[in-house]
């Protein structure tokens, strides 16, 4: 990478921040249209009632909670890459962590919507918050849903702060070349960063502390989310394996999403120099590893159902594989267990577009995992008399798709207005500039 100089790096990345192209605008407008449709669906649902969505007894949770878990899961890869890998000093993160971290913040923002969307009386959502009120009533701290409130809000707070701290030096770089309003904003946001040694010293300490603070969240948040199910009595939900199983799944799906986002970026903005095979190779390894954990979890669930002899468990898992929703289960197995196995071969891991396709499958597979766990388990509960199948309505689907648009909107804004890659950290891994090089 001898051709790369600090100057070149600056130019390369600041070029991303130049005024958006027509293509970007088209993409953005399309995205907003989809988002608008999703919003319309939600408004309609609030007016007519939850019945607008396809839920019924016994399947009282469906797409919304599926999306919620899906998006929270996506978030995890970001924190893993930015915090955990940082602490482990694994250098391949430097080029990707900024995007991953942005993804985290936006994913959690998206996930945070769904607990509201799925409320029957969303206008009373604040009753879930512990605030002093004349009724003298507290929320129920025994309820896993209440834990979610804390888990998700904490996660959002920490990851956004962490995200912002990481940005400071790069914003300063951006500030130098920007003009007009942008310059003002960058100036404000970079908190008077001048890159002095003391600043760097404090900055690095702070960054490590935040990394240390964020690390446990990678494991805690999705554990809490998994307890929404594990703490219930429902066959198919009530399992001790859920927390690790969900955390692994979250990282799995998160890495998948990172790859899905990185590959097009790399292509569009010509970042091949920075996002090299080496990066994809490393991410492929994580993908493979987590995929194996998830596969193991599926196997364990089935084994326990069989070994426990509990007729409810046995029945629900039999139905999961061979019942009306069996197809969803096998889609999940295909995407999460079989296809990622390809990553065993280095040639696959280093084939960028191959990784891209695999990551798409992973995203689909992980979404179906949550769908199967939630919808199938509920539809095949204790009392055979009320077994029923769930059929999504336009509102369910509209809001789910809308959530992707919501996420996409933030991401599009992010790559245009913030340094999508950690300029300073990329410089860290460049050879120190020499006079000769500068002269040449």
């Amino acid at each position, binding site marked *: 990478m001898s051709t790369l100089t600090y100057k070149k790096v600056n130019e390369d990345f600041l070029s991303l921040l130049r005024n958006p192209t027509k293509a970007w605008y088209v993409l953005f407008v399309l995205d907003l249209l989809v988002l608008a449709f999703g919003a319309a669906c939600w408004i309609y649902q609030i007016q007519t009632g939850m019945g607008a969505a396809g839920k019924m007894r016994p399947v009282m949770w469906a797409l919304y909670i599926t999306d919620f878990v899906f998006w929270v899961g996506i978030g995890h890869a970001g924190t893993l890459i930015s915090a955990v890998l940082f602490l482990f000093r694994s250098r391949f993160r430097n080029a990707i962590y900024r995007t991953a971290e942005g993804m985290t913040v936006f994913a959690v923002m998206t996930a945070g919507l769904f607990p509201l969307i799925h409320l029957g009386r969303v206008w009373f959502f604040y009753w879930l918050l*512990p*605030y*002093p009120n004349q009724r*003298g009533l507290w929320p129920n701290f025994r309820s896993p849903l209440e834990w979610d409130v804390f888990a998700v*809000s904490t996660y959002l707070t920490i990851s956004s702060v962490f995200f912002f701290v990481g940005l400071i030096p790069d914003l300063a770089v951006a500030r130098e070349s920007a003009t007009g309003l942008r310059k003002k904003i960058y100036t404000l946001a970079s908190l008077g960063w001048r890159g002095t040694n003391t600043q760097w010293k404090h900055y690095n300490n702070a960054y490590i502390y935040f990394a240390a603070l964020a690390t446990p969240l990678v494991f805690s948040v999705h554990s809490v989310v998994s307890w929404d199910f594990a703490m219930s009595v429902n066959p198919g939900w009530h399992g001790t394996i859920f927390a690790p199983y969900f955390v692994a799944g979250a990282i799995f799906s998160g890495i998948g999403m990172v790859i899905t986002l990185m590959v097009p970026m790399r292509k569009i903005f010509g970042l091949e120099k920075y996002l090299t095979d080496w990066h994809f190779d490393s991410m492929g390894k994580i993908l493979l590893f987590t995929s194996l954990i998830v596969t193991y979890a599926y196997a364990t669930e089935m084994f326990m159902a069989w070994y426990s002899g509990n007729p409810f468990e046995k029945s629900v898992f039999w139905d999961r594989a061979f019942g009306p929703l069996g197809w969803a289960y096998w889609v999940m197995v295909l995407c999460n267990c079989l296809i990622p196995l390809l990553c065993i071969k280095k040639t696959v891991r280093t084939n960028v577009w191959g990784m891209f396709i695999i990551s798409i499958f992973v995203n689909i597979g992980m979404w179906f995992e949550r769908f199967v766990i939630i919808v199938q388990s509920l539809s095949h509960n204790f009392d055979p008399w009320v077994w029923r199948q769930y059929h999504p309505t336009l509102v369910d689907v509209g809001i789910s798709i809308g959530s992707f648009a919501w996420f996409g909107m933030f991401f599009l804004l992010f790559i245009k207005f913030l340094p999508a890659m950690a300029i300073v950290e990329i410089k860290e891994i460049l050879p120190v500039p020499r006079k000769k090089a500068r002269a040449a």
Partner: protein
Amino acid sequence: MLLGFAVVAGGLLFAATSLQAAKTTDTINPGIPTKAVGPAITQPIAYSHQLHAGKLGMDCGYCHTNVGKSAIANIPNVSTCMGCHNYVKKAAGQTQPSPEIAKLTKYYEDGVSIPWVNIHQLPEHANFNHKRHVKAGVACQTCHGPIQTMPVVYPVKKLIMANCIDCHKANRENVNTPTNLDCVVCHK
């Protein structure tokens, strides 16, 4: 983190309120609130509680006959009013018959019910049983304020949960009339 603060703040606030509740000596009738918390509405007939309940010292139950028999205190039948006003046609010291009593008489003769406006409008998802409270010795004034001094009735207590449970908290251990904080007492 924000939530954390909220928790702490809430804790303190509750401590405060409960202390306050504990201070009062007579827990059943801790005192008569006087400050108006709602508008005084002009009624179809300018009936004065000040005159009837205050000056003439009539007992509340004389007109609100079912207050001890039913969950609803009941608004007196027009005929109940006429029981007296068949004879009483003039305000004290007046020579001319009172126009208000004339209105009343007209309602009665036309057999039309008087469209009183409801001042104490209980939220629709809550139940309040007058009988139980009256039998427990709760004075009307404890919730309705110094009604016998009101020419036009105005509310002195918001009909909100806090006002119910303050009293219900204070009397949990009350030997004669232990109260209950079970939700289904009011919400059915």
